[in-house]
Each structure stands twice: as structure tokens, then as C-alpha cells.
């Protein structure tokens, strides 16, 4: 009985975790004993089985060189936490560049970004028939003169009841447009700044957790007072196995690579958790675009109305 349950959960895992290690379900079923021990320990008792984390003397991370050092604005300092234990352990204090994380949040730009993200992929399938599409209406209803009544050419003209609609919705109508490059750039800056200012931004050293049990992640988030929905952002798009497995059953814990970071997702999730690597990459990219020599070519590939 126990073996059957374990086999079922193992196959479920293997089907859902596709990005980490591809393990065919057949081999898992036959070699269930290999995973049995690990699963038994993770299902039964989390706290007892976790290895005690041994750390060098803190602070581990204590300095960070900022690219394009800010002249008159002070860098914002944030704690670097761990993901090894449920309780938060501060590993160090790092600087964040003020031009990325301490900009005056432009609510109008954030709104524009959210509107763009929702609208650019929207296609309206609403449709109405025009006078030539409505069934019938090919024949002149009555002769032009003599009847004493008004003159008409077709019973489906727009002035008739049941006639065609002149300026109605025509399916499919795309609402695609590209928001300006700098608007999108400033949207990211504004949202990151707002998140940091509202204590919804946390930095962790990496997304490695000791177990793939979903309840570990839930306990961790609850313990630290992170919001109901958490967005974990790392530089790499292939995330560690444990956090992928743990967050898989939750719709509100999401993993995202840095290149997928967007204003809508940051607002949708209450808490934003960045790894150190993600912070480095984010700052490097955003600061490059803010200080690049050829600003015009930044938006070149998004120009749609010019050849």
C-alpha cells in the first residue's frame, strides 16, 4: 500500500517537473526503492531530517561594487537573507543602486506598463455583420417611384431594423502596440523602487532549499511575513530542483528568470524575492540602458511603422 502511494507521487512529480531533470516515469516505477527513502523522510517529518546548516562567520556578503557609482544619491542598503532554514538568517548587507531601486515611482508610467501588458496580446473576437453580410437584402424592396412610400435599395441597409451594422466591432481586432522603450525601462525602475520602499523586496543569496517539500516553502514564507504571493527571481532560467518541486503545487509561489521580470507580475505578487545574481544582472542591464551611448537604437527593433 505504502509502495503504491509512493510510486504514484513519484510519477506525478516526474510528469510535472520537466525543467529540472527529465526522468522517465518507467524507470522511477521500477526503481522506486531508490527514491523511497528520500520521499519517506520528506513526507513524514521535515524538521528532523533537515541537515543543520554550517556557515562561516557572518557577514558572508558585505560589499558590492556599484556600476556607474551614484554621485549624490546614497545607495540603498538591504539585508541578504538565506533560504536554507525556515527562520530568517541575515547573511550580510549589500548596496543597491539608487537609480534602479530608489527612483521616484511614477504611478502613471506603472499604469501605462500594466495597460500595455494586458492589451498588447488582446484580440477582440466580437463581430457584427455589415449590410452585405446580413442574409437577404439583394433586391430593391419596391420600385423607386409611385408607391408613395420612402425609397429604399435593400432591406438590410443600416437604417432598417435587422439591417447591417455600419461601424460595429469586426472580428478579429488586435490591440497590439509597443510601448516606448524608455517607458518600459522606467516602469521597471519605478516598480522596483516602489517594492523596496514598501518593504516588499527581499534579497536572498540563492534559491537552494534543503528539501522539495511544499510545506517547507509555505512555512518559510509564513515565518518571514512575506506576502501571500511571492515571486522568486533568479538569473538562470533553470531553477534548482527542490524549489521547483516545492513551489509547483502553489499557484502563488512563482519562479521567474530575470529576463521575464515585468511590471504586471511584480504588482500581482505581494513580495518580490531576488537572488544576488538576479540583482547583479538587473542592475547591469538597467544601468547600461540608462547610460548607453546610442539611445536611439535601443528601441530600433520595436519600431513597427517604419520600414
Amino acid at each position, binding site marked *: 500500500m505504502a509502495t503504491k502511494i509512493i510510486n504514484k507521487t513519484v510519477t506525478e512529480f516526474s510528469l510535472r517537473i520537466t525543467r529540472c531533470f527529465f526522468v522517465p516515469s518507467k524507470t522511477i516505477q521500477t526503481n522506486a526503492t531508490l527514491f523511497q527513502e528520500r520521499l519517506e523522510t520528506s513526507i513524514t517529518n521535515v524538521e528532523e531530517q533537515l541537515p543543520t546548516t554550517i556557515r562561516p562567520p557572518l557577514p558572508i556578503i558585505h560589499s558590492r561594487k556599484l556600476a556607474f557609482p551614484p554621485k549624490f544619491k546614497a545607495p540603498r542598503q538591504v539585508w541578504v537573507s538565506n533560504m536554507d532554514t525556515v527562520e530568517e538568517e541575515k547573511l550580510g548587507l549589500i548596496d543597491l543602486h539608487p537609480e534602479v531601486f530608489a527612483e521616484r515611482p511614477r504611478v502613471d508610467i506603472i499604469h501605462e506598463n500594466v495597460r500595455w501588458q494586458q492589451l498588447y496580446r488582446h484580440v477582440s473576437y466580437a463581430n457584427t455583420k455589415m449590410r452585405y453580410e446580413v442574409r437577404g437584402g439583394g433586391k430593391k424592396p419596391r420600385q423607386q417611384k409611385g408607391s408613395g412610400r420612402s425609397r429604399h435599395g435593400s432591406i438590410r441597409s443600416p437604417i432598417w431594423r435587422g439591417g447591417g451594422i455600419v461601424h460595429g466591432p469586426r472580428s478579429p481586432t488586435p490591440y497590439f502596440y509597443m510601448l516606448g522603450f524608455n517607458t518600459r525601462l522606467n516602469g521597471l525602475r519605478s516598480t522596483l523602487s516602489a517594492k523596496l520602499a514598501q518593504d516588499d523586496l527581499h534579497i536572498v543569496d540563492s534559491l537552494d532549499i534543503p528539501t522539495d517539500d511544499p510545506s517547507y516553502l509555505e512555512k518559510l514564507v509564513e515565518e518571514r511575513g512575506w506576502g501571500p504571493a511571492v515571486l522568486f527571481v533568479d538569473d538562470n532560467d533553470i531553477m534548482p530542483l527542490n524549489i521547483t518541486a516545492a513551489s509547483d503545487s502553489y499557484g502563488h509561489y512563482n519562479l521567474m528568470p530575470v529576463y521575464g521580470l515585468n511590471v504586471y507580475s511584480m504588482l500581482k505578487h505581494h513580495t518580490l524575492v531576488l537572488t544576488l545574481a538576479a540583482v547583479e544582472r538587473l542592475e547591469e542591464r538597467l544601468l547600461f540602458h540608462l547610460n548607453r*551611448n546610442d539611445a536611439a537604437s535601443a528601441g530600433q527593433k520595436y519600431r513597427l511603422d517604419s520600414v
Partner: protein
Amino acid sequence: MASVAARSFVFRQQMNTRRFDFASCLNIKSFYSSYSANPKEKSPENYTQYHEVSSDNWKFVERLKPPTVVPSFPKNGSCFSDWTPPPDTPPNLPYFVKRTKNFMVPVYLNFEAVRNQRKITMVKHIEGDIWALEKAIKSHLEEVTKRQVVSQVHEVAMYIKFRGDYVLHVKKWLLNAGF
């Protein structure tokens, strides 16, 4: 089976534009559809000679390439234009006007023409007490031009607009203020 997609339109174009020349029809470019159909590379003596130059000479190529990021300005030496570098310490004022990424003073002349040529002087990249800055610049402009100046303060986007062409006056005032 190799199918030759010959660019004979090149030949036809040449025919139309200039007099027919037998040599011109040898300029047909052929693009073969598969790798195996293409003529293979011949031995090196069939091609033009080349010699490797020392890799130290790459610096002559690199210095021709434009910089990807705005380079810093030279600290010493005078500029023959009236550009002054941004100061190292900010002035002791409740507001601050940041230079652009090219170290220019952020004052622009806009033409917001509906029917007439309405010139607007715009000051961007403002931080701090924007109203105090507006008051200071406005009083200076009214003193200099001896006429009333109309202004707009946009607190969200943090810019100030003055109706009229006062770009040089505003720039001078900002440089004197120490921005």
C-alpha cells in the same frame, strides 16, 4: 537533384539599364539549394593570399569603434564651447537639477504649436522642492526680461515649463546655481 536558383534578374536588370555586354552575363550569381550541390572549396593557392598581422594592431580597430556606454568627460583642460562640467559637490539648496547622461544641462525648447509658434522652455530631471525652484527661476526670468512669465509645474513627472524661449537664461541661471 540539384536545382539552381539562378539570379537571372540581375542579368536582366543589367540588360535594361546599360548596353548589352557579353562580360555582363557572366556576372550571374547562383545560389544552390543544397550543400552538396554547391561547388566545394578549392586548395589555398586558388585564392588570394593573406598574411596575419600582429594582434597588437587590433587596438587601431578598437579605437575606431564607438563606445557602448557614454564615456566620462576629461577632468582637466578647457572646452572651447561654453560647456562646463558638473560640479563635484551639490549646491546647498532644497532642490537639485541632475545633468543628463551626456552631462548636459536639462533645459529644452519645445514647440507646442496649435496655430501659432508657441515656444516652451522645459526644465527636466528635477529632484526635491520643485515649487521653490520654479519660484527662483521665475523671479530671475521676470527680472531679466522685465515681463511676466507664465509657468507650469508638473509634480508627477517633475518638470517645469515656461512659456517663451528662455533656454539660455535658464541654463545660465542653473550653471550659476551650481547644477
